[in-house]
């Protein structure tokens, strides 16, 4: 039955007129950037793993807030391992700055790829301080390519010391296997409560 008129009454007060069919709703905008999963540490985890990563995307991106439970004041980074492989097929290189000096280094033939400055240490940082990082992995299902990882990470604890900093990290997993799982390992002790690891898929 068609509605031909609405009269003011107890059920129809304070009506808002809209000029389009969306009304008060935000428009839907399709995106090729989708959330896959998020892991949040409860505290004390010595590893966190994204498993059964779908192969339906072209690229992966990880967005991270991380903290280590260690009580010392050293830089507390983290490491990545793919598909549970712990043989010495990982290389990594860094361009970094500790707030005082810029430098670069590289290490090869490791059992994981380590990203410095990705996490802060509980012994140095206040309760609500975390390191931040964005990690990109292109063509993660391409079985003709080793996997090159790009990571921009950094940390600041409101200090002029040099135990935190910023780093442009790269990593190479010398394997052409598709990535189906990603494991994060704390470089010092364990992940502190509230550390958050979010995995996104990017379509192509």
């Amino acid at each position, binding site marked *: 039955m068609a509605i031909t008129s609405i009269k003011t009454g107890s059920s129809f007060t304070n009506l808002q007129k809209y000029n389009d069919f969306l009304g008060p709703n935000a*428009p839907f905008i399709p995106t090729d950037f989708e959330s896959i999963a998020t892991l949040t540490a409860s505290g004390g985890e010595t590893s966190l793993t994204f498993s059964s990563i779908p192969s339906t995307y*072209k690229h992966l991106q990880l967005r991270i807030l991380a903290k280590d439970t260690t009580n010392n004041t050293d830089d507390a980074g983290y490491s990545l391992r793919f598909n549970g492989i712990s043989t010495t097929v990982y290389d990594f290189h860094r361009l970094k700055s500790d707030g005082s000096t810029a430098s*670069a280094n590289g290490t*090869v033939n490791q059992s994981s790829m380590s990203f410095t400055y990705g996490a802060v240490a509980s012994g140095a940082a206040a309760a609500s301080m975390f390191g931040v990082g964005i990690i990109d992995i292109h*063509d993660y299902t391409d079985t003709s390519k080793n996997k090159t990882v*790009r990571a921009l990470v950094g940390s600041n604890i409101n200090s002029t010391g040099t135990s935190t900093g910023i780093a*442009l990290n790269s990593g*190479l997993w010398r394997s052409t296997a598709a990535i189906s799982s990603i494991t994060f390992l704390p470089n010092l002790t364990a992940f502190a409560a509230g550390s958050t690891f979010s995995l996104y898929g990017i379509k*192509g």
Partner: protein
Amino acid sequence: MPSSRQLIASQVLTSTTASITFSAIPGTFKDLVIRISARTDRSATSDSIKMTINSDNTTIYSFTRLRGDGTSATSNRNTGNTYVSVENTDGNTATSNTFDSTEIYIPSYLSTANKSISSVIMREDNSTAATTYNSVQAHLYRNTSAITSLSFAPSNGPNFVSGSSFYLYGLAS
């Protein structure tokens, strides 16, 4: 309005190719992002990527670069370039099956201002020699025209190898 990332076009090479072009880029987005995983057939461990905007190869490109070569951090800049210089990618003698990881960000590609561009590129290698580059770069294209095409070619190459991939995304605002 929520931001959104949408694929505009992609090219994944199935044979060696001298250059690729994204043409007729729609004017419906706010920013552009290009994600590249490339390797060239240059007989060396490294090469560079040239990005040309709107087929314009006049000397109105410039850059400032911060990079690490695996042993030290350096910075340089240059003016009067004829393309956006993104370095370094992997050459043909780098570790086999290894491709760079690059992202180029072009904000406000339709604006009537000159175009400021950022890029981050990682050239990985199973080596501790001073030849493996992590680089972040600021580029300037001194032209106020909207960007409608982007072309990519190796600086030396002469070709990108099979498997090199190029993805162009548009970001809505």
